């Protein structure tokens, strides 16, 4: 049994949260620079120029990439022989609270959605996901803050199990057309297919974690991702909704087993500042 020191969990979560918030990952920066290079639309170039410049300014000023420093999801993946500390939610919350304080992140979480929208002051509680699917002795932590504007673009449809590729394509394009303009495009589209309504949404969010520029392991899904990306980029919404050919920089699909009567389709959209950071312990 590999027993994990509680202090390491808190420190790692803190460090990953700070890094994700300030220092945009190279895969996302590369995709945005490429978008700027290929864009011909004048207003879209204005927006992409600032988006790319902002990445560098955030690093230099050591301030968050976006003022919406997001609502934090933390994914902990561990091997069958790894023993996590018993107070794991508290340790993760404490890591995020420290990052909020020490890196001057915005406190953006209220404790109740309706009657008591009182700010908790430290971005807790964190949405924690524990998955015992890593190899022997392995432990990895991914910190994923997601902004509220792009979260409002999340959509779910329960399709007939007989729906085909054509219908999925039409629906995804329509869903993106409806919500991408207010989700800070160029967006990254995460699609969760299958499962039940709740796990389809989670799969859509997890699809955003896959590094940009990597292919889906199954050829049919990889081809569908490319088809969807091209169809979305023909919409002409463009960077900041101002037009041009860069409405999305990537489409990722995560598919899973489902019931014979179901075909859940979840579309989870990230703004261009797709911030996530992973560390292995």
């Amino acid at each position, binding site marked *: 049994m590999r027993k994990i020191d509680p202090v390491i969990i808190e420190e790692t979560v803190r460090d990953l949260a700070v890094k994700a918030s300030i220092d945009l990952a190279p895969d996302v920066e590369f995709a945005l620079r490429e978008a700027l290079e290929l864009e011909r639309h004048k207003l879209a170039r204005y927006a992409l120029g600032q988006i790319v*410049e902002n990445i560098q300014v955030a690093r230099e000023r050591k301030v*968050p990439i976006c003022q919406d420093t997001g609502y934090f999801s933390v994914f902990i993946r561990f091997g069958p022989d790894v023993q996590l500390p018993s107070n794991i939610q508290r340790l993760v919350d404490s890591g995020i609270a420290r990052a909020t304080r020490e890196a*001057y992140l915005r406190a953006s979480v209220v404790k109740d959605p309706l009657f008591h929208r009182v700010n908790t002051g430290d971005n807790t509680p964190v949405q924690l996901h524990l998955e015992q699917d890593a190899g022997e002795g392995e432990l990895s932590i991914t910190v994923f803050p997601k902004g509220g504007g792009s979260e409002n673009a999340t959509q779910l449809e329960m399709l007939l199990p007989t729906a085909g590729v054509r219908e999925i394509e039409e629906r995804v394009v329509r869903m993106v057309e409806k919500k991408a303009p207010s989700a800070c495009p160029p967006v990254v589209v995460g699609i969760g297919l299958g499962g039940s309504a709740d796990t389809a949404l989670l799969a859509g969010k997890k699809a955003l974690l896959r590094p940009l520029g990597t292919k889906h392991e199954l050829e049919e899904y990889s081809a569908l991702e490319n088809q969807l990306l091209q169809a979305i980029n023909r919409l002409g919404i463009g960077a900041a909704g101002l037009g041009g050919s860069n409405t999305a920089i990537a489409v990722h699909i995560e598919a899973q087993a489902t019931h014979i009567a179901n075909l859940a389709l979840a579309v989870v959209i990230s703004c261009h500042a797709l911030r996530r950071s992973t560390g292995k312990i």
Partner: protein
Amino acid sequence: MDVPVVHLPTERDKLRNLKAGCEALLWGTVFTARDQAHARMVEAIFTGKDLPIEIDGQFIYYAGPTPPPPGSPAGSLGPTTSSRMDPFTPHLLEKGLAGAIGKGPRSPETREAFLRHRAVYLIAVGGAAALLGSRVKEMELVAYPDLGAEGIYRLQLRDFPVLVAYDVFGGDIFSR
């Protein structure tokens, strides 16, 4: 061509020079307000109470700042989605609001209200918050301190880059 500079607050007449689709650099005073501050201000209007700030002739920036790091007047401060303010904006335009800065298109009713009141809607690039925050030279909390980042802050801007989205003649950057 040099990008025109707009000093805020500005005389109404000068808003005529701002044409949809054009760049501008803002200097001077704006007030931040987002969802909850809008809800409270419109509640105040409905119940006949005074607004916490005089908005006649002023500009509102839809934004909630990060806390400034030591030695900096502001941290990151980009625009939030404007359409969430759509139900409230027409009431503020009626009270003399001269313009708003945010991101994304507005509802047809709100766009119509900007035109009716000869006010302008400007957009900044969503997510360019570290860059935009570096153009904020002073930041002071002036109302609703209990709302934290959602309170109303008075900002002094310098060289703050925007595009004109809706001009006073009905021009619309999103419908080109």
